[in-house]
Every structure is written in structure tokens, then in C-alpha cells.
């Protein structure tokens, strides 16, 4: 009886010892494991803080950033919340300010909610570069803009005109009817078509509401309404994937051209089997690479974010800071059968 008791008690103590030991080692062990992290002497330690971790797009950005940071001999790190919430990012910005890293490369989950935290970090000497999603211009040092509306509109018009031989009827499959970005692009596309492609007729703009099924149905309806349609432009990643899925199994495959903005992982099958020849987006790897070099230029004091400042961005060449402390990555990137295998996002 007594032996049994003692065993039970020892077992119980062991059980709780485990929980405490786990907590204790949780801290101790991680300290050793942070070798490549932004332990932060401030010397060219650049930490990426994406909207959330485990997102292929941001993984690709960080890969590009890491490549740049290794080129100029800094320390790279990536931290971030598990879900894309501003409060999670605030905790990380606070932490990075405490660590005193050289620069934070941030994709903001909220344009203003992060401002106070970012400004506190900047008061502590941390440089802040935003990419992908900006904060208010007054609470960061630089924004790396992935693409301009004009560039996005032009590349899509160029692609479709090339694919249909610069003549014939096309339609646009957009997101929602009041989507700000898409409407701005469509307006610019119309201007570009009228100015430089008189033989292309834009017959209709339909809205798939950024919903896969709706976009799919709208594509089907478009092709029934306009049997002589030559091409579809879909300036939204949901729309282009749904339209491609419809075309892939329909009689129109190869006859009706499809282009727009998409991601390589969504579009890989369609490009490989010829449903889609080429589509556009920016290159997130280059975006991260440029952001890292911009962070370095800020840490080194080469630039302050003033309009007209120029800095060197390794393999991408030289860049100039534009209005509102913004740097433009460049023209959108065209993905086709030859290069799509190089991307995973």
C-alpha cells in the first residue's frame, strides 16, 4: 500500500516537473538557437516581418531578401505572427525595437494600427521599410511599391494584343464591381486600348466577385454570349484561375486567349498544358531583394528617404526614391512556360 502511494506521488511530481522543465527549457534552449537571428547589434541586421508566416508569397520575398542580405554581409531574420493580424505584428515590432535591429522590412496588416509601434521603433534608431502593403507614409522610412497602376494596365494590354494578333473582341473578367484597384486598372486599360490598339474591341466587363465559382460561371456566360471572342483579360488572381479552369476543359481551349494577373502556383497547370500562354505579376523575390538593399542604404545613411535619393540594389541596378518616399520595383514580371518552374508562390 505504502509503496504504491510513493510511486504515485513520484509519478505526480514527475508529471509536473515535466511541465515546468518544458517552460524553463523553452526559454533556455531557444536562446542558443538564435544564431542567425537579428540579435541586433544594429550592424546591418535586417529582419523581415511579413503579414503572416507560412505564406508562399512572403517566403519567396524573404528568400530574395536573404539573398541580398547575404550579398552585403548583413544578418537576415524573419519573424511574424501566425495569422495576419495587426496586433500580432505590433508585438513583433515592439520586440524588434527592444532588440535594436538595424532595420525592419514590413508588410503591414493595417496602415495605421502599426504606426505608433513603428514610430517607437524608429525613435530607437530602427529603420523601417514597407513592402507589399504600406503603412501611412508618415510612419515608415521607405515603401517599396511592387508595381504602378499604369505598368499593370499596360502589361496586360500588351500581353493580350500579342496573343490575339492585335485585332478582335476581348472581354475583362474583374473582381467586384467596386474593387478600387481593378477599376483603376480597367480604366487605364481602356485608355491604352483606345490609344494604341484601335483594332481590339473591348465588348464587356464582367464581375466574378473574386469568387471562384462566380468567376467560372461568368466565363462560361461570356463565351456563350460572344462566340467570336478572341481573348479574356482577368486582372485578379481568383478570376484568371477560374477562367483558366473553364477554358482548360472547354472547346475554346487554345482558341480563346487568357491573360491577366495570377500567381505561378495557381497557373502552373494551365501554362504547362497551353491553356494560358503568359500572364503577369510582380516578382516577389525581387521585391524582397530590393527592400533588403533599401534597408541597407538607410542603415548606412546613404539615403534618408528623400525624393531623388539614389541607392544601389545589387543585381537589380540602381534605384531612385520617388515622391512620398516610395521606390518602384519596375515593370510587372511576365510568367510563361519557360520561367514558371523557377517560382513557387
Amino acid at each position, binding site marked *: 500500500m505504502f509503496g504504491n502511494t510513493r510511486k504515485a506521488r513520484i509519478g505526480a511530481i514527475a*508529471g509536473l*516537473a515535466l511541465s515546468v522543465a518544458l517552460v524553463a527549457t523553452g526559454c533556455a534552449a531557444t536562446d542558443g538557437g538564435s544564431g542567425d537571428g537579428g540579435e541586433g547589434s544594429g550592424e546591418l541586421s535586417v529582419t523581415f516581418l511579413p503579414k503572416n508566416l507560412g505564406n508562399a508569397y512572403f517566403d519567396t520575398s524573404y528568400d530574395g531578401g536573404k539573398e541580398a542580405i547575404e550579398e552585403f554581409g548583413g544578418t537576415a531574420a524573419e519573424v511574424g505572427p501566425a495569422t495576419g493580424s495587426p496586433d500580432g505584428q505590433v*508585438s513583433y515590432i515592439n520586440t524588434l525595437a*527592444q532588440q535594436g535591429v538595424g532595420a525592419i522590412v514590413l508588410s503591414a496588416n493595417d496602415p495605421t494600427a502599426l504606426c505608433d509601434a513603428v514610430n517607437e521603433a524608429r525613435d530607437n534608431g530602427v529603420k523601417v521599410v514597407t513592402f507589399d502593403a504600406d503603412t501611412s507614409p508618415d510612419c515608415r522610412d521607405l515603401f517599396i511599391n511592387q508595381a504602378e497602376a499604369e505598368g499593370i494596365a499596360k502589361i496586360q494590354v500588351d500581353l493580350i494584343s500579342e496573343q490575339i494578333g492585335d485585332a478582335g473582341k476581348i472581354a475583362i473578367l474583374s473582381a467586384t464591381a467596386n474593387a478600387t484597384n481593378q477599376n483603376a486598372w480597367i480604366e487605364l486599360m481602356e485608355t491604352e486600348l483606345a490609344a494604341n490598339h484601335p483594332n481590339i474591341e473591348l465588348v464587356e466587363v464582367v464581375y466574378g466577385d473574386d469568387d471562384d465559382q462566380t468567376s467560372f460561371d461568368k466565363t462560361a456566360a461570356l463565351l456563350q454570349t460572344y462566340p467570336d471572342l478572341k481573348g479574356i483579360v482577368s486582372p485578379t488572381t481568383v478570376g484568371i484561375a477560374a477562367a483558366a479552369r473553364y477554358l482548360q476543359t472547354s472547346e475554346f481551349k487554345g482558341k480563346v486567349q487568357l491573360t491577366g494577373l495570377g500567381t505561378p502556383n495557381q497557373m502552373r497547370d494551365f501554362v504547362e498544358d497551353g491553356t494560358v500562354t503568359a500572364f503577369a505579376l510582380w516578382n516577389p523575390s525581387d521585391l524582397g531583394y530590393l527592400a533588403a538593399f533599401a534597408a541597407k542604404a538607410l542603415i548606412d545613411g546613404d539615403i534618408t528617404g528623400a525624393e531623388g535619393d539614389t541607392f544601389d540594389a545589387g543585381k537589380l541596378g540602381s534605384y531612385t526614391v520617388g515622391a512620398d518616399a516610395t521606390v518602384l520595383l519596375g515593370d510587372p514580371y511576365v510568367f510563361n512556360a519557360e520561367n514558371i518552374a523557377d517560382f513557387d508562390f
Partner: protein
Amino acid sequence: MVDIMGALAPATRTYKDYSQPLWRRLLLSREAAVIGALALVIIVSMISVKSFSKPITVTYLFLDIAPILLIALPMTLIIITGEIDLSVASIVGLSSVTLGVLHQGGMPIEGAAVVSLLVGAAAGALNGFLITVVGLPSLAVTIGTLALYRGLAVGLLGTKAVTEFTEFWTDLAKSKIPGTTIPSVVVLIVVLAIVFVVLLHFTKFGRGIYAIGLSPETARFSGIRVERTKFILFVIAGLISALAGIYYTLRFSSARGDNAAGLELSVIAAVMIGGVSIFGGRGTLVGPLAGAVLIGVLASALRLANVTSDVINIITGALLVASVVGTSFLAWARKSRSRPGGKKPEPLTGAKS
């Protein structure tokens, strides 16, 4: 280290053994175990994590965990009655959006905050109504209202955010007690904590809460108004969640439908790590508050050590499981042990396990 182990072993004693002196009973309590673990984590972090011992850590820590500490107060009471409220974080979101929409429409913060608190209380009242009057289980009701209130919050603002707030209030939410690095919101938490401690431990209403958790039937036959008590607790939970929502909105200067999503799990984890039995009838307020600080300190130290958020979640989760398993295991171990001193705790523990 050894001392803490010693303190932990008998710490889950369900009923205090009054043959022991007071200091010994306190030392052997479940709360002492949590506080001991907290002290241990703080000491280890101060030694091994760079930048952790800076005073600014305290500021960020309390700013981060303030909503958890606030909501843990009513949540503890609800869980002691044997119920649960999963909708608290959605009420935080709803009150945040209410504040944002009204302020955007031209209402001053003070007025909008009062309306937000009323919305929170109403949301809590709906929970309470469905649970006590209609008689549905709180788990099912609050899973439903978790979705309902979050849906309303997101529906009111869509994916937009209201970000213009009077600077006086947003500065106040982030301000520190003059001369210290402790955020002012801690004062609010301390005041409310005192109110809740008095309510739970020193009033008839509070004793009723324990009685309901141990046995609703017995409580009812003893003259405790079970339904009314539960209803009041859910309204209070709604009210405090709305208060947390107002703080959250002002701290981040951002009213969004998805504010504080998932916070209910942190709150419940803090309450359970703090030694409150999920089956009701057992627990104090000190434990959950220490549990919330423990979760916050762990997250803060691990972030400073560049641990990714996934690993932080794993460690918090493991801590929760370990604390629950530890409790059950100890209860079992204690039951299977006969005590040579002739005192038999069996009839007492048997009643609730």
C-alpha cells in the same frame, strides 16, 4: 527549483487541509505553483534572453496582455459555475467596430464608448438568455454567438478599418503611470481585479458561484438563484469584453471587424493554467491572473529569443495540456493513496471528481 517541485506536488489539493498552518496551505496551493512557475520563467528569461530585463519589456507585456487579464476576471467566475463563454473575443470585435463606426459618424469617443459597453452588455445578455431562460448548453450557445457577433462586427465595417480617433484617448490607452514603465491600464485592471476578488471571495453572490459549480441542484435547494447568477455573469462578461474592445481599439487606433480574433482561447488557457477547474466549483482569481501573465511573459521572452510564433503556440499549448494533465493526474494519485494519519479526504474529493 527543488522547492518549486515540492510545492507543485500536492498543489492540486481540492480542499484545503486546515490541519496545516496558513503559510503552508498557501505555499501548497495551486496558485503558488503557477506563481512559482512564473517566477522561474522570469528568472530564466532574465538570465538567458537578451533585452528581456529592460524595463520597456514590462510596458509592452502589460499592453499586450491587458485584454486577456480583463476578460479573465469574468471568465473565471463563469468557468467556476461550470459554464463557459467562447464569444468574448467576438464581443471585443463587435464593441471595437461599434466604437469605430459611431466615432466615424461624428459621435465623441465618450458617447461611442458608452454605446459600445451597452452593445457588449446586450451581447452578454443574449448569451445569458439563451443559456438560463431557454436552457441551452453554454458551449453550444457561445460557439453560435462567437460566429454571430464576429459576423456582425465584420459585416458592419467590411474589410475596412476606422483609424481616426481622438488623440487624447489613444494616448491615454498607451500611457504609462508617471515615473514608471508600467502602463496606466494596469490601474484599471487592479481596480477591477479587487472588485472581482471581493465579489467572488467575500460575498454571498460569490459563494453561490462556487456552490453552482459544485452542484447546481444543491445550490438551487440551498436558496441560490442559479439562473439569475449565471445571467448576471454573462452580462458582466459581455460588459468587460466590450471594455477590453474599447481599450484594444484605442491602443491600436484601429477598429476592425477581425480585432482580437482568437483571444478567447488565450483567456481560457490563462484561466485553466491558473488552476480553475473546467468542470466548475474550484479555482480562485489569483491563479488566472498569474496564468495570463505567465502566458504573456513566455510569449514575450520567446519572441525576444527569435522563436517563431508557431513554436510559441506549441509551447503555450503544451503548457496548458501539461497543467490540465498534471491536475487530473494528481487528483487520481491522491485518490489512490490512503493516508496513514486517519484523515480521509475521500468523501469530499469523491463528491466532485
